[in-house]
């Protein structure tokens, strides 16, 4: 559970809020007992502080800055929408202008994932926050004729035979070719990011505001490391220029997942009806390792670390933010799947110190389809075909 509740404090006597020193504390955040009002303010402040570059005074008077907010209907992205909605309203009231507008995008992955929220949540959220633009896009859209991503078609196990498939058919064929739950989850997440980026560009957004909490960013750091994507880590977790010509922003990077869970229940009315709860057990240890993914493992791990060592979770995220990508990196050749720039000679899983076979490293170079180390691990069939 989020924080400790005030009544549970050692002596059983209700404590005063450490900030306002007037109200009774309802929970302990990090080390401070806080009342409800101060806690809500705390979450808002932490979030808005990350968006200082989007202040009203930074906006040229003749145009509107647009940010894309991808929503998954998880606690974090719904909370972010709530916070930004509130923030924009406040700006509007105070200055009659806003620093930016948000466009909400829901990526529908139902073709390949049976456990996704249904349309009614999108309707509900639109009713509650009506001032923003809402879009929905199916994941298979990446394979549709309207957005012909030629390189993605190369991912299909048998490109010639699958040429006639519907976009959904192509996506399903790709998923079926993957050997493990980890690979499937990894490829879905990668495609989702690509779709969000493509939509952001199509909608003329200068950046994307992701809903990742501190905890989620720490999970990602270790999960991407474990998936062999250390080379691209800064592009996955840091604010600012992404590898894709739109900025990535993580305004919730200083707020823990458990704090957002509490936040979503304390807001009035609560955000709970807007949040999709995946069929229970997603965060329970699912130790049949066949269905466990690396992402699941890291999620479980950081949920437990967050409980007793919240500052260690934040420290992981702060530390990762210090990694630096070489300035010339963006011009490097790209991975066909994740589209990340890859250093010369570092494509594929062969040809490095840990590769124990000789003579395989030269095979894939020069081809139009090339995969980074992490993606090669997830795409074993293509790996075999490449040899």
């Amino acid at each position, binding site marked *: 559970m989020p924080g400790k509740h005030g009544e549970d404090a050692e002596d059983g006597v209700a404590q005063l809020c450490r900030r306002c020193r007037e109200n009774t504390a309802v929970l302990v955040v990090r080390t401070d007992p806080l009342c409800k009002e101060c806690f809500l303010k705390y979450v808002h402040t932490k979030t808005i502080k990350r968006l200082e570059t989007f202040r009203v005074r930074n906006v040229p008077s003749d145009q509107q800055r647009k940010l894309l907010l991808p929503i998954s209907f998880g606690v974090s992205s719904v909370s972010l929408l709530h916070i930004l909605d509130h923030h924009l309203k406040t700006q509007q009231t105070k200055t009659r202008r806003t620093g930016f507008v948000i466009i909400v995008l829901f990526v529908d992955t139902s073709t390949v994932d049976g456990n996704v929220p249904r349309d009614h949540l999108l309707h509900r959220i639109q009713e509650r926050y009506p001032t923003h633009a809402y879009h929905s896009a199916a994941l298979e859209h990446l394979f549709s004729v309207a957005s012909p991503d030629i390189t993605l078609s190369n991912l299909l196990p048998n490109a010639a035979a699958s040429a006639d498939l519907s976009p959904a058919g192509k996506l399903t064929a790709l998923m079926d070719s993957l050997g493990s739950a980890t690979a499937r989850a990894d490829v879905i997440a990668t495609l989702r990011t690509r779709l969000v980026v493509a939509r952001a560009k199509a909608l003329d957004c200068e950046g994307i505001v992701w809903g990742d909490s501190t905890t989620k960013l720490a999970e990602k750091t270790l999960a991407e490391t474990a998936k062999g994507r250390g080379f691209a880590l800064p592009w996955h977790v840091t604010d600012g220029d992404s590898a894709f010509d739109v900025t990535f922003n993580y305004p919730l990077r200083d707020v823990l997942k458990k704090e957002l869970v509490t936040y979503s229940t304390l807001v009035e009315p609560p955000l709970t009806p807007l949040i999709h709860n995946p069929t229970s057990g997603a965060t329970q240890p699912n130790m049949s390792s066949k269905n466990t993914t690396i992402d699941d493992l890291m999620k479980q791990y950081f949920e437990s670390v967050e409980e007793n060592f919240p500052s*260690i979770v934040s420290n992981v995220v702060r530390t990762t933010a210090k990694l*630096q990508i070489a300035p010339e990196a963006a011009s490097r050749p790209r991975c066909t799947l994740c589209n990340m720039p890859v250093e010369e000679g570092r494509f594929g899983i062969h040809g490095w110190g840990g590769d124990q076979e000789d003579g395989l490293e030269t095979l894939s170079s020069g081809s139009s389809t090339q995969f980074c180390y992490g993606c090669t691990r997830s795409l074993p069939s293509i790996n075999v075909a490449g040899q």
Partner: protein
Amino acid sequence: MPPSPCALCKINRALILRPKDHSKLCKPCFISVFETEIHHTITTNALFHRGEKIAIGASGGKDSTVLASVLKTLNERYDYGLELILLSIDEGIRGYRDDSLETVKRNAEQYEMPLTILGYAELYGWTMDQVVEQVGKKGNCTYCGVFRRQALDRGAARLGVKHVVTGHNADDVAETVLMNLLRGDLPRLSRTTSIITSTPSAVSADPDSHTNIKRSKPLKYAYEKEIVLYAHHKSLDYFSTECIYSPEAFRGSARALIKNLERVRPSAILDVVRSGEDMAKLVPGSDEGCGGTCSTSIPLAEEEEGGCGSSAGRTVGSDMASMEQQLSQNENVSEAGLEVEITSKRVDVMAQRHDRLTDAVPLPPRKKGQKVKGQGAAFTPKKATKQVMGQCKRCGYLSSQDICKACVLLEGLNKSRPKNAIELGYEEQESETPKAETTNMTNGMNKVQLGPG
């Protein structure tokens, strides 16, 4: 189900499910592929040169026993022209080291390699048992790791050997990568992913000095499970007990993660190692940290690199809890805006209270304020975090400080040795609060800092 044939020779029956990639192999093919891979690691990284004298850091455990056996085999098979000797460190842990040293003695005979045993007692005047009696079981790995690192180098220098190989395997390296991410220690992450480290020769004109020793890990890409399988199928004589003093929270936590990852995706251990090598290149200011992928620069050795292989912990007792406490205090301070940047050199000790998260010894001044920035981290300019290596003023060992870690730890130990008999509540206090021993060492450190520096 018909028995499946070996995936490599296609003739023999497959009896081994290879941990690294789950391929099915027969016993001779497994042995040969394991050895060939290590040969490959040695040749592609140019670890050795003909005529080189190599000391194998031998503990009697599986890793170093397999390392000795494989190196002997490969040296003969491929004619490396190496002179191999065994070097053992006796930490003085009764019931653990006594037996494993007997194993090393047998190995020396089996492999016909000369053996040298060097004791902590001889080098430092303290056995680990005595250290534990003094400081308690929390934090003892710090002492052991710091002492061992120097001990191997000193032993090598004494034998006129310039190159020490250790049995660190892929699991150890992967574990260290995750652990340093969890501890937020990028410089160390970048150094420990390298297959070769070296203590710089520039700081010493004396060619026999123990500050000029090369270190390498030929088993860096070998899975622990395969090492065990190899030892089993070759019927190697090794001692299979973990150190009786258990690892600390960060390392234990990272180790559990690695084991789970391996279960979910067998390649994950190798993938973490690969990520670590790639991330080393992204660490600001790390011209040294090429992750072993470039041959021109060899990273500096870690002053106190853990040497236990399987259970090297080098942090203060209940390290996660104390780091958490420290970090959360820093957060409060930076949020309340109470932080004042102090630039005078004399107050380093004060500024370092922020850094004393993992090591109770002075850290280089360049770290000052780094972890304190807290919330503003993303907006502060990224600083290069390069260590300047010099020599310890007392023992001459490689150190980024005036006084090396071993000497600082020893001073703490020696100072309290006579007092211990009369100060009653001392030990009790230590075991209760992990901070206690930090305080103790801080006192020692204050003296050191305020003296000549």
